């Protein structure tokens, strides 16, 4: 009975790099919840965008979810461009100390 209690007892707290109990914000469950909340928020703001009459000076900005896909796509483009640039221009941070 006592052994069973030990097995079913409260889990040992997750520890951080210093051996202290891990901060609640960085526990795996919190991170999972943050991802879920974030995805819900993204869906919500995309829906919000459909509830207002869009400006249409250029046309493209009135397309469905323009600001959502444009924000995502341009950021992906900038990161990839930066990585490609880095292939040629990145050097060790002691480069100028030699």
């Amino acid at each position, binding site marked *: 009975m006592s052994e069973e209690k030990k097995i079913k007892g409260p889990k040992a707290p997750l520890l951080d790099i210093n051996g202290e109990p891990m*901060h609640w914000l960085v526990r795996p469950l919190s991170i999972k919840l943050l991802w879920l909340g*974030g995805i819900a928020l993204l869906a919500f703001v995309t829906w*919000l965008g459909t509830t207002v009459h*869009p400006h249409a000076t250029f046309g493209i900005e009135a397309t469905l979810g323009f600001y959502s896909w444009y*924000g995502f796509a341009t950021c992906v483009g*900038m990161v990839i461009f930066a990585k490609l640039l880095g292939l040629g*221009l990145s050097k*060790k941070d002691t480069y100028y100390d030699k």
Partner: protein
Amino acid sequence: MTSDFLISPSFILIFGALLLPVVRGWARSALVLALPLITLAAIWQVGDGVQMTAQFLDYELELVDGSNLSRLFATIFAIMAFAGGLFALNQKRVIELSAAFAYAGSAIGVALAGDIITVFMYWELMAIGSTMVVWSGRTPEAGRAAMRYALVHLFGGVVLLVGVIAYIQDTGSIDFTLMGANSFATWMILIGFLINTGAPPLSAWLPDAYPEASWSGTVFLSAFTTKTAVYVLLVGFAGEQILIWIGVYMIFYGIVYALLENDMRRILSYSIINQVGFMVVGAGIGTEMAINGATSHAFTHIIYKALLLMSAGSVMYMTGGKRKCTDLGGLFQSMPLTTIAGIIGALAISSFPWTSGFVSKSMTNQAAYDTEMMVVWLCLMAASAGVFLHAGIKFPWFVFFQKDSGLRPKDPPWNMKAAMVLFSVLCIWLGVQPGPLYALLPFPTDYEPYTSAHVYEMLQLLLYAGLAFFVLLPLMKRKLTITLDFDWLYRKLAVDSAASIAVTISKLLGGCVWVRDNLVNAVIDLASHHHNPKGILARTTPAGVMMFWVVVVLFAYLAMYLFV
């Protein structure tokens, strides 16, 4: 000198800076806090038009010339000097504080100057003050960076001086007013101004020098040089089309280089160029909305960028100088106030609704939209998302969150916290209540930033940029690298070339042993042969011999005269 003032507002900080080293303890702290406030009060006494003149050679300098634009820039410079001084109260190197105050006073001098000579004089004082601030980092890297910084700015100063002289020669006027890039003189002036904005190709001076200053020095540096450059562009070159494309380049340059960077203060330095790019675009568009946008953006940018650098400076101060993202992480657990300040600054720089960046930068985007510049508007929208990516998330994520570094520093001393709280409150207050800022802008405006459509659009743009960041996080893993820039030309190529030329010359001379051993020796031998004590050209000869030969020559001359 004629004046409605006893003293120019800029002089209060410049001469006050000289007093700082001679007072100590609480008196110095009181002076550090009082000088910017007195300056601010003096700025608000400046009315429209010329208020103070002085005679210089044949010219009447307009030392103080008030307008909405100049007062707004001078105001934010004084506020910045106050908050920077508060943050730096426990900075032990008083020379840094003195230099920073002289620098701030000079920036106010530029903002209030009514003629191009006064602009130039304050411009150069700023270069000296800011170089001293970089140098006050007191590390070998800071010393070298200060030297490079000084060289770039002295070069810029020479270009500007050439332009100023040519402009006065061409027009006979020293008035600093809208000039446009339409002659050699005005192009030189424009180039001189652009160098201080961090425009290409000399952008690298900024991320090279600013991060090398002390934990407090970089806070001052972030505010004055680039924003006075924006001010002079707005006065002298508003509507100059080329500025739009220079600004767009700066915007994306800042984002791309910041994405590759590991040093948190270099990330924020690249971000300065990115933000100034928006202002340069605004100056280039040149409409009332665009100029209001660039002006309000400069105002809010100074606050939130200083806040970000205060947060980074606090991390440096409390961790013993750590500034690489690879060494940091997890600091939110022990530095809650610094983390919150950093996040507020990050949200403001990203133009998040209800922050100061939203109500200011949006005006520039709106100006591009209103003037139907589709490509420019699309670039600005992409860049708005990119700002959230490189500064809005990357900076707080890698410094305060990401992997746990195990570091547990506390929040910094009270004065540093007070400065961060002050600017955090301003970031949110200006975002929620933009009316007072709009009332101070150069042109009356009824711009309404908080329409449902605008708020929803911005939220979509930014939150999906955030999604891109976390999806692409593996691609942004930090490494101990730097990214080469145009400064490679003078930091590496020129140095290596000079070394290579020196070696080549040395080898050439070394290879010419024959020259040294034979030809040179032969010349020496020949000279020695004729000039040794018994040589024909050096030996002493009795005066009688000389007289004999003179008589011979005279007789020869007489004979020729008589018989030839």
